[in-house]
């Protein structure tokens, strides 16, 4: 049943969002802290575990892969409703601040990626 997979996905998102909201409340922040990320962890656990096979295999799994495949069209719709006009209206300061933040962050990607690539054993010291 396709709905089983869709329901599993929905339950993951709802519990992830709830936990993210609780985390935000405990930290005293007016924001959801990692709700979507936590929901993704739930789904990763469910899809790697044998207990949830009935909800992730066959037709049920197709209920999840459908939404995964709808991701790019949804992102296109998301792009189409960004406040682009306001971004360009913000003037030079907003433009410079935004561009500079992106450029510096781009440059840091290869630097920090090296941490992940280091072997799990002790790195050799000179």
């Amino acid at each position, binding site marked *: 049943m396709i709905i089983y997979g869709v329901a599993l*996905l929905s339950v*993951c*998102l709802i519990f992830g969002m709830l936990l*993210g909201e609780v*985390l*935000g409340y405990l*930290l005293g*922040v*007016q*924001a*959801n*802290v*990692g*709700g*979507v*990320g936590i*929901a*993704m*962890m739930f*789904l*990763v656990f469910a*899809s790697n575990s044998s207990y949830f096979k009935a909800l992730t295999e066959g037709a049920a799994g197709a209920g*999840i892969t459908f*939404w*995964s495949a*709808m*991701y*790019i*069209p*949804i*992102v*296109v*719709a*998301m*792009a*189409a*409703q*960004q406040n*682009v*006009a*306001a971004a360009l209206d*913000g003037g030079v*300061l*907003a433009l*410079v*601040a*935004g*561009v*500079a*933040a*992106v450029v*510096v*962050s*781009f440059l*840091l*990607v*290869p630097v*920090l*990626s090296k941490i*992940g690539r280091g072997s799990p054993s002790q790195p050799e010291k000179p």
Partner: protein
Amino acid sequence: MEIIETVFVRNNLIVAFAVVGCVTWVSYLLAKKLTNNRIHGSAIAIALGLVAAYYGGITTGGSKGVADIALLGGIGLMGGGMMRDFAIVATAFGVQFSELKKAGMAGVISIFAGVLVSFVVGAVVAILFGYTDAASITTIGAGAVTYIVGPVTGEAIGASNEAITLSVAAGLVKSILVMIGTPLVAKYIGLDNPQSAMVFGGLMGTTSGVAAGLAATDPKLVPYGAMTATFYTGIGCLLGPSILFFIVSSIY
């Protein structure tokens, strides 16, 4: 005309599916014919979406791009936060746990590094443009983190409306630039594996920017980048009005 409008408005989500489908088809066609697939079809579709959003913004004066045009209101639902998060979570289906663990530490570091770096850059730009009060500098710096962290921080520390507006604009510029720029720089920053995608998500942090940028680069990387990016705004909202504001106000 009235009949068409009634049908389109009443079925706005379905209209959105049809419109996005057509835009995607045209984009993939353009990618193939014009660029020989050197530019990904989805990158063109996202760029077209942004252009349409600009047009929608200037013609309606609203803040939701093309979704403010009545006939295309369904775009707002289809591309809204709820559907976006639902689809992002779905991309995690089939992700190997071991890949996540490999970049775990680098991912966590990248979130904090990303918030700090963007904040410092934004704050320095604010100072260069002549701002001297701690609240404005902090708020504009927080805006360079994301367009949510900016106003949340600004309201918490009592910044001026002007600073809050600027912070939102800075955050929007960042988000849009990540959408467009990621596929162009991916090769040069080694963005081609799950580990660097997690670091990338943590450093950039703007969920929409990362989501669209990675989709246009390599859809397989999306879940890894999105996973870390979704913690970024929360961490930003945590650090902005507290530690970062204290540091700035101790200097100014």
